């Protein structure tokens, strides 16, 4: 058995080397397509994180006037406590609001200095039982008519935007990736086919002296699998670059403060990398299996 192992390894690498240019083309195509698959997954996860972090299911916020009367607050609280439409809520008083403001604008001290806890509006962050956009809009309208309410901000619009953005980007990437994955499978098929045609006599002799079908197939399938794995191996560092550069760019974006939450946990990048390697190996195996069953005729 040990003889066979080294035989397979030797034959596989001899063949990879013999078709170097095709091998490189196949590996690079796999790398690009898998990098796109991975990026698409990262962006989707980032969006999920961003929207999930947006105040933990809070769909709208009722801001009170800074000088709202206690009985006005009482009235709001009573509605929140009794209404079946409200699942839960958190009251953020002016001091807590000031703390948050300071944290959020820690890099803009002049802005922080311009406010005091006294002028911060206290707010109710509300989780409705039904997060449907129409329902949230209706609830928001009702609260905005209450006395003492300054304004009602719904997160729905912002969340819609970020979801929309990430869905479109990740779908476009995924579509490109699927096309490229198909292209790379075909390219691997072709590379393995070239390897097979370059060794016609060898295969014929192998068949006639009684080599088993799998013995003949395995080096070619290994070759394809290595194409896939090497491509995936190149795609993994690309994923980490996407994570540290592209997603980080969103997080630092001034224009869209919501994207501050656009972070992907490190564990997710690693998990995605493992998937990428599995997909790469699968592409290689499928591509070469096609080539072997179609052209090897054993």
């Amino acid at each position: 058995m040990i003889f066979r192992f080294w035989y397979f390894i030797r034959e596989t690498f001899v063949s990879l080397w013999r078709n170097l240019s095709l091998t490189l083309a196949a590996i690079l195509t796999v790398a690009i397509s898998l990098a796109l698959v991975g990026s698409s997954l990262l962006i989707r996860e980032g969006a999920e994180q961003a929207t999930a972090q947006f105040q933990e299911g809070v769909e709208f916020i009722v801001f009170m006037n800074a000088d709202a009367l206690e009985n006005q607050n009482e009235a709001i609280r009573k509605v929140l406590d009794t209404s079946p439409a409200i699942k839960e809520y958190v009251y953020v008083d002016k001091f807590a609001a000031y703390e948050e403001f300071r944290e959020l604008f820690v890099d803009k001290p002049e802005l922080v200095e311009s406010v005091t806890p006294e002028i911060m509006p206290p707010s109710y962050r509300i989780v409705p039982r039904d997060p449907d956009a129409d329902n949230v809009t209706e609830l928001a309208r009702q609260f905005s008519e209450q006395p003492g309410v300054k304004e009602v901000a719904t997160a729905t619009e912002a969340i819609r935007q970020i979801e929309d953005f990430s869905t479109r980007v990740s779908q476009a990437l995924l579509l490109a990736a699927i096309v490229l994955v198909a292209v790379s499978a075909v390219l691997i098929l072709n590379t393995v086919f070239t390897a097979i045609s370059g060794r016609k006599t060898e295969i014929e002799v192998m068949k006639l002296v009684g080599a088993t079908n799998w013995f003949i197939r395995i080096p070619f399938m290994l070759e394809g699998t290595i194409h896939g794995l090497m491509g995936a191996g190149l795609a993994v560092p690309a994923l980490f670059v996407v994570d540290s550069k592209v997603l980080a760019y969103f997080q630092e974006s001034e224009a869209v403060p919501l994207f501050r939450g656009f972070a992907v946990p490190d564990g997710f990048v690693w998990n995605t990398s493992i998937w990428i390697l599995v997909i790469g190996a699968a592409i290689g195996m499928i591509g070469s299996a096609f080539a072997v069953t179609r052209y090897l005729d054993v």
Partner: protein
Amino acid sequence: MIRFETVTKTYKGEVVALREASAEIQRGEFVFLVGPSGSGKSTFIRLINREEVPDAGKILVAGKDVSSLSSWKVPYLRRNIGYVFQDYKLLPKKTVTENVAFALEVIGRPRPIIKRQVPAILELVGLSRKADRLPEELSGGEQQRVSIARAFVNRPLILLADEPTGNLDPATSVGIMRLLDRINRSGTTVVMATHDRSIVDTMRRRVIELDRGMLVRDESRGVYE
């Protein structure tokens, strides 16, 4: 050793390569298959090692019905059958030794056995001194000896040869025939398709003649025609 029972083989359902052919070849026999091109000689040979499957009839090789053999068993059948080609089919980038060893490597023989058997077989075919040459450095006759060594290194029960002297001059052919005769005398059944009248007439072995797929003659010490 080999038995054909009313075997018929057609290609694409039209061209009849073999029509109800029956023959029995005993262990240790030497059989010439003769007949014009397209008479079915190659088909006869290809049916024995299951490169082709008959449309009708039965073919028994070493007691097994090869026409109904499941395809995963075919390699194991072929390990008992050596095959010599008209065009040698040597691997150009491998030396003589490597070419012969290849046949053992790909059926998973352990290296110590390969190391012992390959020099012995090269000795038998008279190529010990050219063991490290590449095929292109050899004459046609020498290349055919390598091909025979490769076919015989696993000590098969049967040796099939399709026009093994087809590309060789008469003097060289005689050398090849001596080698095949020697292999036959060691107990191996040899089936050889040929056009070479003088070889058949000199050797005086069993002759099976095919004509347009029909088995028209079967003589135990026959001549070409």
